[in-house]
């Protein structure tokens, strides 16, 4: 177990990167706290796997350094880093039995046979494969193979970090939930540093203490699930997390009020005058729909009933927004007005969040 530190780390797959756009992973400085469970969240091709492979040493970063507990391991080969990694598609050694597969990482390190046998038993129990230990790994289902891969990742107790690269993609939904819960309890029990790459927000939010959101090769926000929900630092975080994502409206902001196409919106706190491409963002959960009264005039395009609540899609002076309305509440049919909870509105300039004055809500970014 170790604290992992990135210093000016960046990577490009091109031999001579020219501008920022050439970097698959833009410069990043970060401490991965020892013993925390992180989820690395982002859409495909945003650099998640690149970052993971740099930690495990499968990839040499083009610039910057990486430290394990203060020791520079930038040039160290994978074998010396003592990292466990589980890949998206199951990797098993076909000709070995399930038992040998699980024992393989320990045997390679010359561990004591009695200890190996005991560890294999423990891990087999953890992944629910105590029964078929003597089976050949070839011919098992993808589920079972991925469980073996997970087991091989967990068999070493002294690893510096456990890395997961979308490990549950090939697993059945009900098993997915079960395995994720197991991983989480494993984390509580042993306190390994875990980094879990995924593009599924539910997976990220349920698994991790801290979620790292990546967008276009850049880490845009690191925070608890709550922080990501309440105060997305970047419009991408607002849009990517939440279902449906955050509503974004082009606006001009002056002091404590914003002007959008449909009218004026009260922001709850002062912002001065933001420059650049200014937008206000508000989550559908904090948009209320009423008939008549105060608020901006809008028209309803459609209502989607998802069971727990209804999602109302509205047209607000040409901009499409969504609102979440509780199941019991009726949706007005005429003279529709929408209003936003002022305390939950975020202001963005050029996609990055602008902190309000006087820290009336949240801290400065």
């Amino acid at each position, binding site marked *: 177990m170790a604290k992992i530190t990135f210093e000016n780390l960046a990577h490009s797959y091109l031999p001579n990167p020219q501008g920022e756009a050439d970097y698959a992973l833009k410069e990043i400085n970060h401490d991965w706290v020892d013993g925390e469970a992180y989820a690395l969240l982002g859409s495909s091709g945003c650099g998640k796997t690149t970052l993971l492979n740099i930690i495990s040493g499968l990839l040499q970063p083009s610039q910057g350094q990486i430290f394990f507990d203060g020791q520079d391991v930038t040039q160290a080969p994978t074998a010396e880093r003592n990292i466990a*990694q589980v890949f998206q598609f199951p990797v098993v050694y076909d000709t070995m039995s399930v038992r040998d597969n699980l024992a393989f990482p320990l045997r390679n390190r010359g561990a004591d046979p009695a200890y190996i046998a005991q560890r294999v038993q423990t891990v087999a129990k953890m992944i629910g494969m105590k029964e078929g230990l003597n089976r050949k790994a070839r011919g098992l289902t993808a589920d079972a193979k991925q469980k073996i891969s997970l087991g091989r990742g967990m068999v070493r107790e002294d690893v510096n970090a456990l890395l997961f690269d979308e490990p549950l993609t090939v697993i059945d939904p009900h098993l997915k939930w079960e395995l994720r819960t197991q991983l989480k309890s494993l984390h509580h029990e042993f306190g390994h540093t875990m980094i879990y790459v995924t593009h599924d927000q539910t997976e990220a939010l349920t698994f991790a203490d801290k979620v790292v959101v990546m967008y276009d090769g850049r880490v845009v926000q690191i925070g608890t699930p709550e922080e990501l929900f309440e105060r997305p630092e970047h419009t991408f975080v607002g849009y990517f997390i939440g279902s449906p994502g955050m509503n974004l409206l082009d606006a001009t902001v002056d002091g404590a009020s914003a002007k959008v196409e449909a009218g004026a919106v009260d922001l709850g706190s002062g912002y001065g005058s933001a420059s650049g491409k200014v937008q206000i963002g508000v989550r559908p959960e904090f948009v209320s729909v009423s008939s008549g009264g105060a608020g901006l005039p809008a028209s309803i395009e459609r209502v989607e009933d998802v069971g727990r609540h209804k999602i109302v899609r509205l047209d607000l002076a040409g901009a499409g927004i969504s609102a979440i309305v509780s199941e019991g509440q009726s949706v007005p049919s005429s003279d529709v007005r929408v209003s936003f909870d002022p305390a939950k509105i975020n202001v963005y300039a050029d996609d990055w969040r602008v902190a309000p004055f006087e820290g009336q809500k949240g801290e400065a970014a």
Partner: protein
Amino acid sequence: MNKTDNQKAWFLVLPMLVLVAFSAVIPLMTVVNYSVQDTFGNNVFFPAGLEWFRSTLQSDRLWGSLGRQLMFSGIILLIQIPLGVYIALNMPKKGFWVSFCLVLMSLPLLIPWNVVGTIWQIFGRVDIGLLGYTLEAIGVDYNYTQDAFDAWFTLVIMDVWHWTSLVALLAYAGLQSIPDAYYQAAKIDQASRWSVFRYIELPKMMGVLMIAILLRFMDSFMIYTEPFVVTGGGPGSSTNFLSIDLVNIALGQLDLGPAAAYSLMYFLIILLISWVFYTVMTNLDKREGN
């Protein structure tokens, strides 16, 4: 689903049947026909029973050739398979040199058999051949026309030169199909180079290697042109393989009956070995699947 009986459907198989009859069954039956008859010329035949089979089985000739043939196939398999795998493992995985290596490797495969024979026939001559002359010059006693060991050495090296590429290319194809994640996982698991070969590369190559072994076995077991051009079966009968021996009986001595019996047994031996090989292969597959 209800199936309707329609006997006319048999007619659809007829063209295929005719084709196979002319390409395989009828020629084969002619040979079978020869093998049980004798003739004194003038196209007059009379039945000879199983006499030709009996006499061929009792002669040392068949057994000698069969022994040499098996030894030849065994030696070239023992050299070509490991060598081919070794070359494949050391070929570049990507970049410009891949195409270069692939072209270089396939060159020997494109040369016709008799040309290969001619090349080595000249290459090995002590008077004008580069190999023979050089060996002679540095004091190695080498002469494939007089020394049985030298003749074997030349034939084996020639076959290795001609066909190792095939094994290497097949093995390379097998290696290329292994996803990167396997190598990465092996690094994570701190597997040694030998473990990577033993537990990742070899199992993934097994399928194509089996095909390579089968192809190389059958091909080498039926080899004719190259030894015929290089040694002609000599010195003595030391490189007289089954096919060379057979052609000598059939066309040299015009003994149609014994030659037919000989060729039928030759055919049965190949069939038998291929069948055994196939059965072992599929059983291995099945056993590992469980």
